[in-house]
Every structure is written in C-alpha cells, then in structure tokens.
C-alpha cells in the first residue's frame, strides 16, 4: 500500500515535470519567438529533469516488479 502511494507520487511528479516544461508558454511569461528568459530556461531544465527522473524510476519499478513476478512463476512451476 505504501509503495503504491509512492508510485502515485512518482506519476504526479512526472506530470508536474511536464507542467513545468509547458508553464512558461502556458502562463505567458515567455514571449513566443523571443530569446528564452532565465525563468524559462530554469523551468525547462528542472521540468525536463524531473519528468525524466520520474519516468525512469517508474520504468525501473515496473521492470523489477515484472522480474519478481517471473521469478515467482518459475518457483511455482518447479
């Protein structure tokens, strides 16, 4: 149950990272076609990193869970 809550938190963090990437353009403090301001650069880097880390963590979590399932299946066959 606790691990499930953690996974949900990772999903929310992934969505938060996507929001941070889109925020400068969605909120409107980055003019289109203009050079990126400091806030935009900061948001893009942090949002991208956050989304990437969350996504990689989710993939690792799913892969490890699947590996454990496969191991349990092997043991039950034997």
């Amino acid at each position: 149950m606790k691990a499930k809550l953690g996974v949900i938190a990772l999903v929310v963090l992934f969505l938060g990272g996507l929001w941070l990437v889109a925020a400068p353009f969605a909120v409107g403090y980055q003019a289109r076609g203009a050079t990126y301001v400091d806030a935009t650069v900061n948001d893009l880097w942090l949002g991208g990193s956050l989304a990437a880390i969350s996504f990689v963590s989710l993939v690792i979590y799913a892969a490890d869970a699947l590996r454990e399932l496969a191991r349990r299946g092997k043991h039950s066959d034997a």
Partner: protein
Amino acid sequence: MIRKFVGTVAAALAVLAGLWLMIAPFALGTQPENADWTSATQSEFFSGLGVAVVGLIGAICFAAAIYEELVVRGLVEVRQRKAEPEPEPVPVPAPQASSAELASLLAPLVEALREDLSNSGEHRRNGKAPLVGVEENR
C-alpha cells in the same frame, strides 16, 4: 527492494528540485525586489511547493515500504515498548493470632506427627504407610 530504493532516491531529488524552484525567482533575480510577485514567480513558487510536498510524501512512503520489507525479512527488529511495571501490592497485615491460640491449633498436628514418628515402620490403623516413610520414598 531495489525499485523502492530507486523510488526513494527519485522522490528525494524531487524534493530538492521543488525547494530550488521555490527560491529560484529570488536567486536568479527574475523577481524584482519590493514589488508584487510576477506571474513567473508565482508559477515557479507554487509549482515548486507542490513538487516538494509530493516528493516528500513519495519519499516517506517508499522509505516506509522499505522498512516494512526489512521487518518482514527479519533484517530489522521492531522495538517493543517496555511494559510499565505494575505497582507492587501493598501487603495487608495478617490478623495476629495470639501464641496461645496458635499452640492450641497446632497441638493435634504435633501430636499426630509424634505418634507417626514413634510408630515408624509399622502400618497405621487405616492401612496407609506412615507419612515419614512416604516422604523418604519419594
């Protein structure tokens, strides 16, 4: 186990990222001093607050899950709370019997014992072995 550890690390990194987002407008100088918060500052601050809170919740949940698994595997012992010692019962003084009453109460018993000792080796009238013999045979 490793997946929970990875989740904990990722969530902890998210906490740090959220904290940085909260202070970034002031650290980078995009928020002018003594002025109302700009839309960029508000967006970054509240996004950072959300990221930090969610990251903290995730880190706590994953750490609790790791702890639970360690307990299940027997690698960590759960500390038991020491039970508070019960207060010792106050001894109630037994009613004092006078020595004369005690002597009169014990007299038949002493007499029976003396009789039993003097008749050791012989069967008693009711056919049972004497008390002393029984005790020695144990």
